């Protein structure tokens, strides 16, 4: 494989394409509501109308407005159809030639779409994720070519560092710094690991990236491997994502066949293989040391750091571990340069972030927005405000590890530091919206129940503390609590935060502490009764 081979594949693919493409979402959300059946019926309708020479039906990744799904888009003109049913196929095809069609239309010019800034999701909803040719036609694997042929590993790391990219798995650790640490660590072998465990309730960003554009993640991993000197990679995907796993495996097979993974990539001396490892449904296996233990075939349990995986990871070897979305940013940074990337977002938080908007909000779905956007803009402009006009009360970012941010603080910009300042975290991108019908103490209880069930049980504060906190919340919501219970709640929260071994226990108190801070009256109301 050479650069001109890539260009040839891209040209052939463009020549193959029909003038009109009917994009039919086949990502998990739409798939669950007959996405595949719709695709089949559309194909039949095109054949019946004799339009095969002009129109093609393409199964694409997530278009974004999952709440209005199943979604169908007519490209390139941009007509969007919402809530499509299989029996609408004929009408949709007829409408291409000016026929009548009563299927509900979406407005591609509403803020939900126009306020977005797609980098990670640049191909999502536009290409068929199961065909590497489409990815290549969209410019794919050119950054990998550039990295291997025109840049030294140190130059790649320098570009990532200068881009300001920070880890999208939650903690926001500078990606370039992590890469250079692994590059400098000594080891006869090094590994690249992609964290696709995504266990937060309400989060589905990484699933959608893997389902919509698996090659983007593979290309990012491959560039990382070149930069740090690894020849083996693993993608750890949670078992609850069978469809993402299937697409990823297909993508790996295709990339191997095209000589973009495996030995002597682009006829260089660089080799890189990728294997999938499937998680077995434990939230804690998203924590990096537990994830590595799980790949090694041991019990998925965190261990104290240091040593960090960068020095001693998989089988004791230096290991780079990044989140799915982090890897999905890499190709674009190499393509457009670090200065371009650094110009998006804020001083400390560069680039964009993908969020999964869920809960009591009008537009549920996936969005990718530049950092620095305010919560108000996300909730009210992109999200269209509360569900059926109800008043939005708060948002929870970061899932069970994050905090609840009240509507009065919605002018907070979305960046790592500002969200931490108001008692939450950026997290991996779950954004759950609450309206006035949500009881905040119940919400805190829900998240604590999750943490109690997902605690690995290794360290005492988290293993027993989460159970005790959950009990106190049960007592309070049952109207049997007292001020002494709230005091004990606070004392236990401090214990967990300060003494737990891993991030799960350390951040488990966040939902309780933030609701206690911003919605004190809801707790007081319950203990007064």
């Amino acid at each position, binding site marked *: 494989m050479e650069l001109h081979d890539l260009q040839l594949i891209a040209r052939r693919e463009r020549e193959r394409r029909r003038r009109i493409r009917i994009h039919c979402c086949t990502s998990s959300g739409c798939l669950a509501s007959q996405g595949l059946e719709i695709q089949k019926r559309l194909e039949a309708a095109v054949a019946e109308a004799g339009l095969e020479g002009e129109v093609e039906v393409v199964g694409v990744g997530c278009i974004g407005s999952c709440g209005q799904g199943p979604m169908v888009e007519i490209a390139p003109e941009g007509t969007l159809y919402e809530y499509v049913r299989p029996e609408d196929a004929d009408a949709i095809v007829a409408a291409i030639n000016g026929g009548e069609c009563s299927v509900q239309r979406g407005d591609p010019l509403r803020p939900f779409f126009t306020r977005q800034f797609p980098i990670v999701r640049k191909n999502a909803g536009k290409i068929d994720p199961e065909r590497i040719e489409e990815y290549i036609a969209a410019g794919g694997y050119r950054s990998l070519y550039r990295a291997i042929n025109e840049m030294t590993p140190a130059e790649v790391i320098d570009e990532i560092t200068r881009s300001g990219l920070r880890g999208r798995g939650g903690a926001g650790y500078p990606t370039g710094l992590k890469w250079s640490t692994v590059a400098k660590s000594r080891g006869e072998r090094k590994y690249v690991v992609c964290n696709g465990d995504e266990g937060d309730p309400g989060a589905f960003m990484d699933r959608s990236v893997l389902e919509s554009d698996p090659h983007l993640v593979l290309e990012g991993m491959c560039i990382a491997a070149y930069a740090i000197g690894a020849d083996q990679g693993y993608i750890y995907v949670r078992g609850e994502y069978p469809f993402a796993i299937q697409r990823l495996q297909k993508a790996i097979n295709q990339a191997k066949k095209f000589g973009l993974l495996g030995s002597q990539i682009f006829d260089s001396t660089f080799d890189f293989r990728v294997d999938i490892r499937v998680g077995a449904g434990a939230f804690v296996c998203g924590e990096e040391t537990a994830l590595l233990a799980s790949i090694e075939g041991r019990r998925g349990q965190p261990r104290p750091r240091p040593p960090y995986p960068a020095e001693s990871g998989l089988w004791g070897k230096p290991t780079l571990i990044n989140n799915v979305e982090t890897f999905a940013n890499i190709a674009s940074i190499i393509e457009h340069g670090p200065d371009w990337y650094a110009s998006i977002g804020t001083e400390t938080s560069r680039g964009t972030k993908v969020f999964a908007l869920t809960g009591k909000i009008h537009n549920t779905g996936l969005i990718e927005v530049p950092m620095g956007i305010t919560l108000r803009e996300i909730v009210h402009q992109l999200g269209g405000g509360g569900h059926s006009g109800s008043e939005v009360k708060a948002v929870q970012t970061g899932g069970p590890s994050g905090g609840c941010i009240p509507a009065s603080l919605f002018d907070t910009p979305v960046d790592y530091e500002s969200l931490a300042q108001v008692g939450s975290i950026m997290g991996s991108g779950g954004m759950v919206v609450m309206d006035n019908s949500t009881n905040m103490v119940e919400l805190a209880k829900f998240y604590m129940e999750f943490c109690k069930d997902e605690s690995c049980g290794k*360290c005492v504060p988290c293993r027993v503390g989460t159970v005790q906190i959950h009990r106190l919340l049960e007592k309070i919501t049952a109207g049997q609590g007292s001020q002494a219970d709230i005091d004990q709640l606070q004392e236990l929260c401090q214990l967990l935060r300060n003494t737990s071994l891993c991030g799960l226990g350390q951040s488990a108190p966040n939902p309780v502490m933030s609701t206690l801070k911003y919605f004190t009256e809801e707790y007081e109301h319950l203990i007064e009764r």
Partner: protein
Amino acid sequence: MAAKTLLINGTMVSAREGETILEAARDAGVKIPTLCHLDGLSDVGACRLCLVEVGGRLRPACTTTVSEGMDVHTHTDALKAYRRQIIELLFAERGHVCAVCVASGHCELQDMAVTLGMDHVRYAYLAPTCSVDISHERFGLDHNRCILCSRCVRACDEVEGVHTWDIAGRGTSARVITDMNQPWGESETCTACGKCLLACPTGALFKRGATVAEMEHAPARIAMIVESRRVRG
């Protein structure tokens, strides 16, 4: 091997490079409470009792190695309060009824409660129903008294070399198991060497036939075995 100088509770102390804070403190005569640590076994940092303050942050003394100029505080008021909370949480977790326990008087959990000045438990007793396994002809396991320190797991794996023990389940439902969670007596790997009994800090692992307060553990023997093996090379 290079020496490191550090401050422990304001006193200058020297330590060997690669030593843990726990070892350095012990050499300096400072006793840091521990439960999951056992000399001779690897450290896991699980019980969190040995947390100390290093430059304003809490670190487990058993897994943190010393570095030059480190400023360590081992007994601040906050640490003492956390340790008491932790030991209370352990007592509330399962059925620790000392009055009927074979290990009473020889139990590290009991001793720790005394050392830390725990006079009552402020948390709700979770009182789970835990099973007792007396399928082994010489030994028994009472889950009611297990604190999940994993010392048995490590002694069996690292010293005896058979890895009969492991932990199954999550959170407070986690339990020590033998082999693939079959009764201990049916384990195909157990050599009945008794090292897990030596290592266990509580009355969870006991010799069959022992009655209240009769069961003595000998955790120090684990370190002796490891050391004598090392000397013989």
